[in-house]
């Protein structure tokens, strides 16, 4: 039955996360202004709070990380802060890739590592077919050479799933993904990026120089170069289908925080939001606020839609892009609008709104820009291949 109300179990989860999120807010500014430090996994004030496992107890969701419950977790945590997130679900983007593209044996072997994902290079981002990093087979090993940038969680991760080409002349079909553990000879974390927002979240740059990994570190163990299909891309696309709604949910959690903050400030100043009357019954401010709330709600529902399909085991390629594109634009408009309403209070670093405004800006960029999402959606609508629309 169509239903959008949270259950008692959902409430328990969201309320529990919010209690922790409020503690995290107390640290948000510090780690924003001390970019080089890593926020702790646990904070003193909340160390006796229920664990994520406690909060998830009694749920039957088969696919919590990517289903609707996963979205509640993402948004519930980032409602506090993007970077100071206690008891994050273990793993990174690389773990999702391992799940999608690895063999069952590979998954079993590495699933407990926190894995980053390294695709972007100094010369290629949205078009990964231009990957320059190479992998050359040498007996039972691969030799990796190249550079990777913008690697999320790249400093803290135990290892990385890295994209490299085994045959540049084969284009996309020649690109394969490899698991490289930290400490592999020739693998260096060269620096941590300085960013507009999500500052405490580490974003690394890697250099691989004659880095050797065992043959078995090729995800999927398939080194053949498919003639027509896009080979290794498929596994990664599956990864993004799974993670894009979560990325959208992270953004929407911060947008919700911005709306809540703005509503509270307006209320304290004697401005109540009253639903029902149209523009003749609203001030410019309340009308604007309600429109932003509608935009928030619309975005949230597209996220739930994509995640619900995932939980049902149904394909959600288009929906994952729809929610990522929608939320990517919405969270900017919402945080910009909240600043516009609150004026000086909105831009003061005394409050977190200006930080949310900076933090959410990443939503429309990473894991596929809004433009890439629109390309995917349009191809789906039009029945076009990559060659027909690019």
């Amino acid at each position, binding site marked *: *039955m*169509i*239903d*959008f*109300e*949270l*259950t008692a179990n*959902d409430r328990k989860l969201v309320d529990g996360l919010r209690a922790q999120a409020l503690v995290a807010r107390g640290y948000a500014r510090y780690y924003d202004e001390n970019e080089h430090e890593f926020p702790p996994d646990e904070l003193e004030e909340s160390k006796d709070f229920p664990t994520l496992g406690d909060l998830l107890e009694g749920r039957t969701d088969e696919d919590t990380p990517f289903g*609707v419950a996963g979205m509640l977790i993402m948004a519930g945590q980032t409602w506090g802060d993007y970077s100071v997130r206690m008891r994050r679900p273990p793993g990174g983007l690389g773990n999702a890739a391992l799940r999608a593209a690895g063999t069952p044996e590979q998954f079993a072997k590495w699933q407990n590592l926190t894995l980053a994902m390294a695709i972007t290079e100094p010369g290629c981002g949205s078009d990964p077919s231009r990957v320059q990093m190479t992998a050359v087979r040498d007996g039972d090993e691969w030799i990796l050479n190249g550079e990777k940038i913008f690697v999320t969680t790249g400093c803290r991760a135990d290892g990385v799933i890295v994209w490299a080409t085994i045959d540049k002349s084969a284009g996309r079909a020649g690109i394969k993904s490899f698991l490289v553990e930290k400490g592999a000879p020739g693998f260096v974390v060269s620096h941590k990026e300085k960013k507009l927002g999500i500052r405490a979240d580490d974003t690394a740059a890697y250099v691989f120089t004659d880095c050797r990994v065992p043959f078995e570190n090729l995800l999927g163990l398939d080194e053949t170069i498919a003639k027509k299909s896009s080979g290794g891309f498929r596994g990664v696309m599956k990864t993004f289908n799974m993670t894009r709604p979560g990325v959208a949910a992270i953004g929407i959690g911060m947008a919700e925080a911005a709306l809540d903050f703005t509503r509270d400030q307006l209320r304290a100043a004697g401005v109540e939001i009253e*639903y*029902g*009357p*149209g*523009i*003749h*019954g609203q001030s410019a401010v309340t*009308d604007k606020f*309600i*429109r932003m*709330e*509608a*935009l928030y*709600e*619309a*975005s949230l*529902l*597209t996220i*739930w*839609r994509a995640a*619900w*399909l995932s939980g*049902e085991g149904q394909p959600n390629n*288009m*929906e994952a892009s*729809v929610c990522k*594109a*929608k939320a990517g634009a919405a969270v900017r408009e919402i945080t910009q609008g909240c600043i516009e309403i609150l004026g000086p209070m909105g831009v003061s670093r005394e409050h977190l709104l200006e930080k949310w405004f900076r933090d959410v800006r990443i939503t429309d960029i990473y894991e596929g820009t809004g*433009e890439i*999402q*629109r*390309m995917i*959606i*349009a191809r789906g*609508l*039009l029945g*076009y291949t990559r060659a*027909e*629309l690019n």
Partner: protein
Amino acid sequence: MISFKLTDEQEVVREAMRTFAGEVLRPLAHECDEASKLSEEALGQCWELGLVSTQIPEAFGGGGEPRSPITNVLVLEELAWGDAALAVAALAPAGFAFAVADQGTEDQKRRYLPLFGGDHYHAASLAVSEPGPTFDALLPRTVAEKRGEGFVLSGAKCFVPMADRASHFLVVARCDGDLGAFVVPRDADGLTVSEPEKNLGLRALPTGVLELEGVEVPAADRLGGEAGCDVRRIVAGSRTALGAVQVGVSRAVLEYAVPYAKEREAFDQAIAQKQGIAFKLADMHIEIESSRWLTWKAASRLEQGLDATPAAHFVRSYVAEKALWIADQGVQVLGGHGYIREHPVEMWYRNAGTLGALEGTLSV
């Protein structure tokens, strides 16, 4: 529990409506728009689907199916995809009937609901909109003044659907510092029903202006009796219904624009292969999805008996704007052909613009 799952029955209903809209409504839409006249036959066929009558309790002559705003938004999207004017006409009686079923006294149900249980279309309408530049559904200027045991209504209503034939109107008015809804029969003294209005879109839908000059309404015809009714709930039902109609129109636009853009070539390529067009289509799709889920959410709040006013407000402000934007983009994708009446897109553009200005014409 958060779920987008339709019941098996809803799947069947939606599929049946899709077929009906494609086979019966869509082929007539252009002709009816040009003639500013509904197809009475199609309206009759639509009624026979039982969209209103089945949800009237058995005790009052209906089919006794549970009231389901969710099923109704699914139905409305499909019908409106075929023809929005006919969709509004088909569900306009629901604006009256469902309000009585949901909020009427036993006496009111007994007197009015049997009108809607039969095999033939019966018109009775909500009267919410008002002429004048400052109209707001929840801030009406029409007044119901208490006099003796009853009320006296004064004011004017416009865009009242099926006004040419409605037997009764449910008039929303200010009353005692609050809002109320009052049943006014067509032949009430002091009530004048205008000739059909001429509107930008939904041209086939007959709408009219009601002038109420000291219309006396007995206490028994105040919806909900002495306790009154929740007008916000009536308005929320209407806003949700309009949202579903808008989503249907939007989908019609996109589904027309996509094959056109693949067919039409410019500079040695289908225009759909250019990002300028492809991204428009993608954005139209994104907004259709967003709008549909907002509408479903409002419907689900109504179905569960929860406060639906904020959710319906979001539908009202967001979906209306996006539906017009989508139709506008549809015209642009077709270029000159979008402006020519041979293609339906200009009609959808007018319809979307008109729907955005409506309140209280139908319900779920």
